């Protein structure tokens, strides 16, 4: 694997969760997006909780190593206690979003970064910030709705490059199937069916219609912006672009992991020539 991203992260999960590989080998990786990076963190912590120390073989490519350092990966993995390791400022893109009270500060930090780098229109910026608020809030609202998960590990990271903006929001909580299954009519629902109902029909674990619908709205916005969206939960993953959205089987892993990629025109920047 030379690229660890939304498209290839399931290969990593298959190795660690199905094949029970004894390490995460990023040696040949030359690019890591925030989704891949945060998934590595979750996998390592998931193993630690089971008493297994899963070593990470770092990328040999110096630029890739530096990028991972800038994103805070070695620091994050170097600590045994996950809370408080990520500061919500421009220097540390990986941010802790486990609790709702810290979310406004994280959104503000991400907003500051975007404003420094891009000539966003007011309307685009407002929509983008709303997307951040809703994605981030999903973690404290849903990742531990049963109260059974000791550390859901809600995290967010952002990266921008020539393709646009990459945003990842992850947790290792109860997952979408279990969350929606808290409603009696959906008890025992599969992850794929839950993904379908939540993303395409706007359902949520709350009967109150004002709650929920956020992922559906984000999916609609992503489509309108010609971006891509990946949502992985339990044993299913949804890939969506401006033309289609399909749900596939995925190696089993707890929680929900979301990868959002928005093209440069959303940020007010022309696309690079093809």
């Amino acid at each position, binding site marked *: 694997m030379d690229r660890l991203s939304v498209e290839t992260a399931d290969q990593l999960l298959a190795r660690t969760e199905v094949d029970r590989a004894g390490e995460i080998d990023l040696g040949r990786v030359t690019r890591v997006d925030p989704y891949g990076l945060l998934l590595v963190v979750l996998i390592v912590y998931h193993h630690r909780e089971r008493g297994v120390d899963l070593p990470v073989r770092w990328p040999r490519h110096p630029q890739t190593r530096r990028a991972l350092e800038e994103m805070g990966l070695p620091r994050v993995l170097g600590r045994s206690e996950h809370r408080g390791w990520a500061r919500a400022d421009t220097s540390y893109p990986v941010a802790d979003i486990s609790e*709702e*009270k810290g979310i406004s500060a994280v*959104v503000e930090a991400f907003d500051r970064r975007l404003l420094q780098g891009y000539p966003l229109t007011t309307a685009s910026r*407002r929509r983008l910030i709303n997307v951040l608020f809703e994605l981030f809030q999903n973690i404290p609202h849903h990742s531990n709705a049963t109260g059974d998960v000791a550390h859901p590990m809600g995290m967010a990271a952002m990266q921008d490059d020539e393709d646009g903006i990459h945003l990842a929001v992850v947790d290792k909580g109860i997952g979408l199937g279990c969350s929606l299954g808290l409603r009696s009519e959906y008890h025992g629902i599969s992850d794929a069916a839950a993904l379908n109902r939540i993303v395409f029909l706007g359902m949520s674990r709350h009967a109150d219609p*004002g709650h929920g*619908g956020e992922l559906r*709205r984000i999916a609609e916005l992503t489509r309108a912006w010609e971006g891509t969206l990946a949502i992985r939960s339990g044993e299913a993953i949804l890939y969506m672009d401006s033309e289609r959205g399909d749900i596939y089987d995925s190696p089993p892993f707890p929680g929900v992991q979301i990868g959002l990629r928005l093209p440069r025109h959303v940020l007010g920047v022309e696309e690079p020539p093809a």
Partner: protein
Amino acid sequence: MIDHEASFLIQQFGQRLGTRSEGEVARTHLLRALTALPEPGRLLVDLAGIDVLSGSFADEAIAIPYARLAAAEYGDRYMLVRTSHPDLAEDLGYKLERRKLAMLCLSDTGWTILGALPPPMEETLALIVEREETTAKELADALSIRHNACLHRVGRLAALRLIRREEVGSAGPYATYRLFSVVSSAD
């Protein structure tokens, strides 16, 4: 006529408003302001000075109180949103739509509807706003629809708190109402 009016500045809770818990705090204050308003009265929820208003905050702070208003919990009172930047209220509109509610939004270019309102209802509402005060019979004639169909429409508009309806008597099997716009020409 709506005799009383008050403004409620959302900006007092911050400029970038995003989380449900922040919205819950704002809701308490908004409901207090609504209750303090004499009847009949309208509360203008003013978005001046707001940079971002997320759907979650807006649902807690504005849509939930509006749902309670539409459930007749707050008497002869009305709520409208006022903003110079209608795109700020987009996500509030989405939440109102999910709750099957509609709310009047005043901007520099006039009034619009946030949430869900079918075109025939909006047409009826526009006529009431234009006339400021009217009756169902006058509306039925102007819209070329049957009287009971018109009564159904204005009944729904009144239930959604988009107009004020005052019963003034009866004509045959039907109650007679005076209908008042909650938007004034000064808006």
